[in-house]
């Protein structure tokens, strides 16, 4: 399974949204459940899934799901 698909699965589970609703442009503005608290849970779950560390600084430029996947892709290589 590729990084994007794995990110989609994690995202869908944490945010409790159907897989089909996870789009590249999904952001805290479009996904109701993507709040500060679920964001913390999402980051922890992605760190666990990919065995990576996501520092706070990474969040400065991540504005949507696409940005999140790009960041994980660079870290998970």
């Amino acid at each position, binding site marked *: 399974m590729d990084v994007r698909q794995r990110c989609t699965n994690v995202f869908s589970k944490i945010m409790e949204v159907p897989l089909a609703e996870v789009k590249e442009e999904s952001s805290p503005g479009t996904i109701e459940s993507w709040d500060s*608290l679920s964001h*913390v849970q999402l980051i922890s779950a992605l760190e666990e899934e990919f065995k990576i560390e996501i*520092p706070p*600084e990474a969040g*400065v*430029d991540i504005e949507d799901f696409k940005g999140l996947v790009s960041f994980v892709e660079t870290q998970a290589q």
Partner: protein
Amino acid sequence: MSFESLAELISKDVYGLDKTEKAKLFGKAMHEVCSFHYDHCEPYRKLCDKRAWSPQSQTGIDKIPYLPTSLFKHELLLSADEKNIFRTISSSATSTGISSRVGLDKETSARQSKCFMKVAINRLGNKRRRFIVLDLEESLGRTKNVSARSSTIRSLLFCAGKTDTVIKDNDGKLELNVNKLDSLLQEAEACKEEVFIFGFTFILYAYCVKQLLNSGKSYKLNGSKVLHIGGWKKLEAQKVTPKKLIEDCCKVFGVNSKDVVDFYGFTEQSGMLYPTCEEGVRHVPNFGDILVRDPISLEVLPFGKQGLLEFLTPIQTSYPGHSVLTEDVGLILGEDNCACGRKGKTFKVVGRAKQAEVRGCGDIMAEKFA
């Protein structure tokens, strides 16, 4: 509309520009944003016209018409189309019962978050840690209308690896869950885990630090940080000074005094955060500036003189919050000369103007405690 100078200003190292470099870029960014508000917010344009000021006026930032915080209580001032406002932030209700409100579109919200994060990371470090929050669990969730108290906590959570709340609601009265806090702090001490303990100033001191001190509890949390924000008025009434608060936090939590961080900010310019640095003073980042005005004449005062604090920033484009005169009293200490190494003006907030109402999340929240 694209705000190119503003984007460039935000992209720079947050405290990296010296006076000359900053003046040029900040001036351009303010011009872009002032023009935008002038063109898109009718009440602001009327105010500017009344003061015979227009974006074409070749004047310094001290001449940009400011809005007193009281104006944000009377109406939702907007420069963005109302249908694009997806979130409003309200200040803690004050002693007069009227809150300030600001409306955010997605662009402003994202920009404010970015600025807030850059300042927070600069002071707190680029490492996520357990966040022990002195508030109710519900203060961490999302709602369309966000209280300033909740907004502040949530904004800091991007630094969190895990979150725990240690305040409970006992039949409408709030109280500290001492056992939970004790167990979390003992665990952190045993694992040498560096945590963040976050609370509103009065709550942190009166309902946590003092309670732990009185019960003789103390911890060794070297490397952990104690973060607080909110009004000082109620602590002042109890004769608790910032120095006393730091000393007692060090006694109880076993942290270094440089790791007790006092944040300052206000709803009308949410996104702007002013933590105390390791030297105990506050810095203005690249994307902000500060002036001190005489409370009577409203003339700008020189460094070292106390007066009303005016804050300028171009980061809000959905509402005219770019120049706000607060009711907080303080002074500018210097510029580009702090021993901590950060550039920019340094300042100190010394209190509230005499006629000002009680304000600040901690002071207002305190009224809900048992």
